[in-house]
């Protein structure tokens, strides 16, 4: 998985490419842990993300909890497979999906 970050003042966009799974989720978690200070808007761009597993959901949940305290988090460009995962797990109500 590739992680591409773009910072614009207090807005951070993180574009993911590939698969967010057991092997790759720790890299995203580490990246977010060191990048969220001072950020009020986190945008996760999934346009090049193929799918995610529960390891990815765990990272999304902890990012959402962090951003609830300091601003907002938006997930965008979700494909059909990922959209169904969000539906089945109730993450469609936990996350803001555009």
């Amino acid at each position, binding site marked *: 998985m590739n992680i591409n970050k773009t910072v614009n003042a207090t807005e951070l966009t993180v574009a993911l490419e590939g698969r967010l*799974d*057991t092997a790759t989720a720790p890299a995203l978690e580490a990246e977010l842990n060191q990048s969220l200070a001072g950020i009020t808007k986190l945008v996760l761009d999934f346009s090049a993300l193929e799918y995610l*597993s529960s*390891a990815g959901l765990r990272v999304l949940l*902890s990012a959402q909890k962090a951003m609830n305290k300091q601003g907002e988090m938006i997930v965008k460009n979700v494909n059909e497979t990922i959209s169904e995962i969000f539906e089945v*797990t109730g993450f469609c109500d*936990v996350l803001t999906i555009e």
Partner: protein
Amino acid sequence: MKELTLAATVENIQAVTDFVNEQLETVDCPLKAQMQVDIAIDELFGNIAHYAYAPSTGDATVRVEIEENPLAVTLTFTDCGTPYNPLTQADPDVTLCAEERQAGGLGIFMVKKTMDEMKYEYNDSKNILTIRKILN
């Protein structure tokens, strides 16, 4: 029927995924079904890698069987680790808000929801977990 035996490690999830995808690519498997199978591999082989032999390590075997009419794939995961039936795990409450949610418990739940069959048996000192997915 094809079978792969390798060390149950997180690093080997990719090798298992490639092995299964190679078989799925020999038939007309829709991409979405393939991705759901790949997610199931991540959850199930990942669980074996994390828990079956902890704190030691060991091998796991993944068997792939493809049937026609209907087109379906059956994956069997076998390990000789601690007996554990993931089907006895309670389903997570998927209606909770972010703050109330705990990490974890979602993997097996997702597999149950996306596969057509899932069964577990403990036989001959082995955990044998089978999933079946109809592909079209």
